[in-house]
């Protein structure tokens, strides 16, 4: 369809080059099409899915779907029980604070959204992995900066992160990866090396070949996981795939939080990666609190009372878990070790049961879950809320009902997530166990 300009001589006649093409403007279609777009993208009546109860609380009309989706994630964690896990983790969080982080498709912008998710992640991480260490690296202006060294104090990281949130320039995934892998190289072999990249940009400006960096991460057994904020980027998927990590793209703030939080429980470890070995740990004594025990404690030499004494070098450290700043010994308390234990033996996932099954179970005699013999409804074993009829006073919808496969007792959704996420013990099984033990003991006495 090239044309010689109209001023140039033309061989035969001065015809309009598109005279033959029938191209009148469409009419009457435009208005209809615009409304279709609005229907699909702009009219997001999210409030219609809410209703107000008599106390003025907003509740979702159907919360079962939401609850099911959340359960699915919990289940997938619980299903992988008895998998060898890396309990002592060294995690480098690489945060992209390039130009793309200032885009405002998340509120107020991507950088702030990432920071707020990371703050809760760091707390959750140390809660679930008391024996682990974390460090933060940021990518900005084509370079990578080490924001905080690998260490075990959550508040320190959080403070550092909050004070460093201005975004700009290009992101260089290669620099970020190299720096992370560099710092993880020196970790002893029992430590599980991980990199978590939060990637807002869609491209990376690298000084060299990033494939080499991915290879070196692979060689040093660093597991690289990525979370994208906008779209699937090939190199992120590749680095996650090659190093055995995961890759996810956030649909929004909420989804980003879910993805990031998914990295809080320890990942399965590959048998070849870490040989079983003994780790030297110290269990320090707590010093008495009070004004007479004030001392300069820790690396920063802050004047504090309390704190802990390292059993090897008798240095004072402010908090646990941490590593001694003098002799480098890992310092933990026994509850920390115990808390890590549940990752190895998670309780079984509860099975969702339909309302019919619950009614049937209710019909059977000797159901434990009746508060009174003449009671016609069935109650959550753990919180004693009604599972079938919504509480009249509270006016709540009936949620998902689940059942423990071992003890066969019913639980409500909230208790299910509480049991799996925080408690890590099934109250039903524990109670049945005690009763049986009690019975056995009685028999033996007799």
């Amino acid at each position, binding site marked *: 369809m090239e044309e010689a300009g109209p001023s140039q001589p033309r061989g035969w006649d001065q*015809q*309009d080059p598109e005279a033959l093409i029938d191209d009148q403007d469409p009419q009457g279609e435009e208005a209809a*099409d615009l409304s279709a*777009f609005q229907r699909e993208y702009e009219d997001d009546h999210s409030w219609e899915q809410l209703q107000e109860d008599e106390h003025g609380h907003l509740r979702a009309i159907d919360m079962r779907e939401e609850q099911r989706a959340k359960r699915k994630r919990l289940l997938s964690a619980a299903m992988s029980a008895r998998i060898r896990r890396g309990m002592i983790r060294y995690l480098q969080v690489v945060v992209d604070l390039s130009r793309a982080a200032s885009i405002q498709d998340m509120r107020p912008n991507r950088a702030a959204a990432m920071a707020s998710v990371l703050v809760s992640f760091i707390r959750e991480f140390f809660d679930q992995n008391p024996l682990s260490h974390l460090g933060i690296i940021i990518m900005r202006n084509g370079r990578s900066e080490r924001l905080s060294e690998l260490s075990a104090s959550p508040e320190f990281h959080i403070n550092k992160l909050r004070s460093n949130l201005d975004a700009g320039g290009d992101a260089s995934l290669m620099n970020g990866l190299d720096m992370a892998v560099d710092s993880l190289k020196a970790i002893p072999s029992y430590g599980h090396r991980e990199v978590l990249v939060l990637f807002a940009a*869609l491209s990376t400006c690298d000084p060299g070949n990033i494939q080499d960096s991915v290879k070196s991460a692979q060689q040093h057994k660093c597991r690289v996981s990525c979370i994208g904020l906008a779209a699937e980027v090939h190199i992120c998927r590749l680095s996650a795939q090659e190093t055995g990590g995961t890759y996810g793209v956030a649909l929004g703030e909420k989804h980003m939080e879910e993805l990031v939080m998914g990295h809080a429980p320890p990942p399965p470890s590959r048998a070849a990666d870490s040989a079983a070995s003994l780790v030297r740990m110290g269990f320090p004594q707590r010093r008495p609190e009070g004004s007479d025990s004030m001392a300069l404690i820790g690396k920063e030499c802050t004047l504090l009372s309390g704190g802990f004494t390292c059993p090897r070098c008798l240095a004072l450290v402010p908090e646990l878990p941490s590593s001694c700043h003098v002799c480098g010994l890992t310092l933990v308390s026994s509850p920390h070790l115990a808390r890590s234990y549940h990752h190895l033996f998670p309780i079984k996932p509860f099975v969702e049961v339909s309302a019919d099954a619950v009614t049937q179970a209710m019909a059977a005699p000797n159901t434990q879950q009746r508060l009174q013999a003449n009671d016609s409804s069935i109650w959550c074993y753990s919180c004693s809320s009604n599972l079938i009829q919504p509480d009249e006073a509270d006016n709540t919808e009936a949620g998902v009902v689940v059942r423990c496969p071992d003890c066969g007792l019913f639980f409500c959704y909230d208790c299910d997530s509480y049991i799996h996420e925080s408690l890590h013990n099934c109250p039903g099984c524990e109670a049945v166990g005690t009763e049986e033990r009690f019975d056995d003991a009685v028999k033996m006495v007799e």
Partner: protein
Amino acid sequence: MKFLLDGLTVHFPYEYIYPEQYRYMLELKRALDARGHCLLEMPTGTGKTITLLSLITSYQLAHPEVGKLVYCTRTVPEMEKVLAELKELIDYRSRYFQGPGQSPPQILALGLSSRKNLCIHPRVQEEGSRESVDAKCRRLTAAWVRERHVSAPDIEVCSFFEDLERAGQDAVLDPGIYTLHDMRVLGRKKGWCPYFLARHMLAFCNVVVYNYQYMLDPKVANMVSRELEKECIVVFDEAHNIDNVCIEALSVNIRQQTLNLAGSNITRLRSAIDKAKATDAQRLKDEYNRLWSGLAQQGHLPAQNRSPLPGGEDTLANPALPQDILQEAVPGNIRRAEHFLAFLRRFIEYLRQRLNVQVVETETPATFLANLQEKVAIEGKTLRFCYDRLASLLKTLEITDVDDFTPIHLVADMATLVGTYARGFAIIIEPYDDRLPSVPDPVIQLSCLDASLAMKPVFSKFQSVVITSGTLSPIDLYPKILNFNPVVIQSFKMTLTRDCLCPVVLTRGTDQMPLSTKFEMRSDAGVVHNYGRMLVELSATIPDGIVCFFVSYLYMDQIVAKWHDMGVLQDLMAYKLLFIETQDVVETTLALDNFRRACDCGRGAMFFSVARGKVAEGIDFDRHYGRCVVMMGVPYQYTLSRILRARLEYLRETFQIKESDFLAFDAVRQSAQCVGRVIRSKADYGMMIFADKRYQRHDKRDKLPGWITTHLKDAHLNLSTDMLMHVAREFMRGMAQPYDRMAVGRSLLTEEQANSMNAATAAGLA
């Protein structure tokens, strides 16, 4: 899996089959049963090739009476791909015949290509072009060269050809699948010439894969495909441009330089004749007698000299279609070699005179012939014999370096075609290229206007012809322009587990001003700016690779220059590296290579390409290489081209196809072809942006293939740039989520499901 399809056992080398593949097989089988032709459209990425091969080989197995499968592809890589898939299929099929007392059915399949791709002679294969390899080969294998070699051993011959010749009838291939590479390896091992072995084995094989030309270009087809039996099943894959291939096969362009070279060819022939007269006058006399007695194949060497293998003496056959060649003796006035040369010289002089024009002239063959008769007293009927007469002369004079004689061949081609066809052709003489009016470059174009001419012998000779491609829409236009009656016309949609195609129509910029590459709008600064901003915003939203197609090289040059001045390019470079297709193949290949590297390493890149260019036709931008493809404007053909005008007129008069309909059809199939580059499998995803307000019109949109229009939602029509960005962001996020790749039952059928579908159709029929 192995399943029953309408009474036919089909071996399919995968565990699952897509429902559309199943339906495709069903329709194909119907056409084969009815012994008719069919036209099938199925989107790329659905395994069209394996479906075709699987059904047709199964059909051959069940019905031994059907002939070969002749599979025509456009390029050598495609050919290799077909053979590789066939190999996998046959390996798989043999497993079903492992039981005691059973032997797997034998199959012989091979790829046939030019000497350039098959030659293993150490010196000949180093030649650069196809023509020079052919010529070198002829110099070593022509019958008279080999004859002379017997008496004078210092005359070189090709040892591979000699060994093959010596093996004679024993030179056969074992059953199996032979790619071009396999043929060369085997040739080296046995010392046989792979090219002639392949030509020889053509008669014995079950499947042959070769280029379109071997079937459509009468010059090549008469030489290679003449002996194929009627029962063959002929498949044209990627056939959306088949009409253009047909037309090119019958068109000839002659420039000033061609005429000059043809003149010197005649001089050389003249001296050769003189020499022959002095040394071996008998040869010329024999030829004269042969021509006079009107042998069916004029100029063939006497039968006793013919070996079972046609050696280097076989030249390209007559450019006219077989049924149009007159089976009679060459007219008296060109029987003698000297007379023939004088005749040709006269014809060339006439052409030279015609080239000397200041204005464009368009005429039909009839007026051209009348003029010819009047001016230089050359008759149309005599012209018809030009080609055969020249071939005979070259053979008689034992000339082997035919590549030097290409110009005179061109002239003879033209003479024969003009003499043979009164309809369906146009002669257009242009003093200069329209795009460069200041540079005189006169050219005589004998242009074929009717694609059905070259297709006709194929349709009439072979029992079943299958025309298939990813984009054949609107599918009812193809039977019209190719002038045939298919028994099955079907367009299949892709079953997808998720909406991984996202076609959108962008009609306005952010400022709500319309976007179009219409002639009167395209140089408008606002339009150029809006297009540029759209690309910049897109590059900030789409990860990895973006491909952008322009309507022409000229337009691309103009708009890129303007973008440079506006600073658009600089903004683009912040997000993506830029690569541009040029008319130079090497440059483009390099650009493509670097484009891929930029996508691989995460830098992200954008490729500027041109619809109808090499890239638009043959290069895939699958996975991260093409997350988004932008079609800037509607790629109409250059409508001022005389050839196109003549063709449009012919189509209107002969087939009652409106000009605007054909132009829109042609433009939309090109844009469908361009945007289709981005999806190559079901696991892939990509956006397709039609950036022109004219796509909003129904007559354009309806011409898009069904598998695109079904995904074209109302909400994605008539968008402005900012709306587009919103759509793109949502789409990219959604597609990045993990999904169930298998989705058995919905988009994949297991063996049982396929069998039960068969039972259901059988029950439905009963």
